[in-house]
């Protein structure tokens, strides 16, 4: 009888088929410890899951590994969800991990994530709900265990930085099942008392279970509802709780919260000195400026040579006086008198001139008159013949019957006409 031989590939393929079709292997929930943990450069995780007697290979691909909320390492107790299959190339079977969380706290993580998402959606973490912290708190409230290290840290740091502030400790349980109610009631008490300007709510480091009260919804809501600003201070720097998201300010530790809460008096003293300096500088600057102004005024001509101002005034006065004098009435009169005189003179001159001229004319006329004087002509032998006082210029005018009078220059002759001849 001829034997039938299988190939390795066929065998592994058959095995894979068997595994993949076993419903029990398609969803496996496993509790185990991690060992041989390796992170592939591409981001896939390779590890061995074991208990005290047995072990199994496991792989978690990058797409699933992204959702991990912790960094797996050897020795971690984990809860794993996945399915089983065969890797044909190597003929090995392994668990393909879909989800993995730390054992014991796995549920807590889920709860944490769920609450965080819910409160974020409700807007409790929004910036606009954050209250501003007082700059110089008069009284600081601390909600924590009165016996823990946290309260001592806060008191010490505040005592060194800003001792003038008062501290009121509101004792609260910070772990265990009653912690959440205790914290909530003290937040409410502090708000009702109204004695503190700011609250520090927190505790020192511990396991995630120890810090759990600060991940509870009622604590988150109490912090959100507080009218007093709250600084959260839970655990160590690496611990992040819901309280940190909802508080007005997150501090990494209680000591850090104290530092945030109060100013350092050294800084205040520096600031006070700075203020004092600035006051002095400003005042002396003011004084200096006034001095400068004063000097400027004093050194101005008005104050330096007051006579200079007088001088110019004097000059002006003189000028005005001159002007005034020019219009003095006596001057006017004088002026007019002068005018009159000059007119007078001119008149006299004119008169004299006219008279002179007239007398000259008179002389020449007299001479001319002399030339036509009939007496002068008659002296030369001419006579004038008249009849009845009428000068006769022609024989025809003669009346033969009337006497004839002949005028000589030195007398007259009455004549009788004898005969008239023409």
């Amino acid at each position, binding site marked *: 009888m001829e034997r039938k031989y299988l190939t390795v590939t066929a065998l592994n393929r058959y095995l894979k088929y068997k595994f993949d079709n076993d419903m029990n292997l398609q969803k496996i929930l496993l509790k185990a410890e991690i060992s041989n943990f390796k992170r592939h450069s591409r981001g896939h995780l390779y590890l061995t899951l074991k208990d005290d007697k047995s072990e199994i290979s496991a792989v978690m691909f990058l797409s699933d590994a992204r959702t991990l909320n912790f960094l797996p390492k050897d020795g971690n107790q984990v809860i794993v969800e996945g399915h089983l299959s065969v890797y044909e190339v190597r003929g090995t079977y392994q668990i393909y991990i879909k989800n993995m969380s730390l054992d014991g706290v796995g549920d807590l993580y889920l709860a944490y994530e769920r609450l965080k998402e819910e409160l974020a959606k409700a807007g409790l973490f929004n910036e606009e709900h954050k209250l501003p912290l007082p700059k110089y708190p008069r009284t600081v409230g601390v909600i924590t265990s009165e016996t823990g290290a946290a309260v*001592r840290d806060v008191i010490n740091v505040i005592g060194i930085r800003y001792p003038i502030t008062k501290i009121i400790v509101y004792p609260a349980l910070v772990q265990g099942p009653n912690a959440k109610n205790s914290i909530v009631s003290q937040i409410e008490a502090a708000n009702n008392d109204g004695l503190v300007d700011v609250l520090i709510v927190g505790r020192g480091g511990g396991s995630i279970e120890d810090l759990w009260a600060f991940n509870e919804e009622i604590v988150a809501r109490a912090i959100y509802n507080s009218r007093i600003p709250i600084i959260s201070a839970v655990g160590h720097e690496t611990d992040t709780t819901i309280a940190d998201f909802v508080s007005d300010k997150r501090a990494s530790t209680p000591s850090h919260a104290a530092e945030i809460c109060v100013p350092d008096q050294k800084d205040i003293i520096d600031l006070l000195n700075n*203020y004092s300096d600035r006051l002095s500088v400003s005042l002396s600057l003011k004084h200096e400026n006034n001095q400068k102004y004063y000097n400027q005024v004093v050194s101005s001509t008005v104050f330096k040579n007051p006579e200079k101002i007088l001088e110019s005034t004097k000059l002006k006065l003189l000028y005005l006086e001159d002007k005034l004098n020019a219009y003095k009435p006596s001057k006017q009169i004088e002026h007019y008198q002068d005018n009159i005189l000059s007119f007078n003179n001119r008149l006299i001159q004119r008169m004299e001139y006219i008279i002179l001229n007239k007398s000259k004319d008179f002389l020449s006329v007299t001479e001319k008159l002399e030339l036509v004087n009939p007496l002068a002509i008659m002296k030369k032998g001419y006579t004038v013949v008249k009849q009845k006082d009428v000068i006769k210029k022609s024989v025809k005018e003669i009346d033969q019957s009337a006497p004839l009078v002949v005028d000589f220059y030195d007398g007259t002759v009455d004549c009788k006409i004898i005969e008239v001849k023409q």
Partner: protein
Amino acid sequence: MTEKTFEEKMDKLETLVKQLESGNNTLDESVKLYQEGISLAKECHQELQTAEKTIVSLKTETGLEDFSK
């Protein structure tokens, strides 16, 4: 008038400094601002220095108790 808080004093002081620095005051006003500022600064300084130890109280059901170490 009630005693001003430390914060109010510091704020007032800051205002005085800025007012004086603005230079928009007469010499008289400047001197007053200066005097008020300096005395406030001294007051704050003194307040800080006279505080020896932080007063710590513990809130109990009956009220506040001393909680010094």
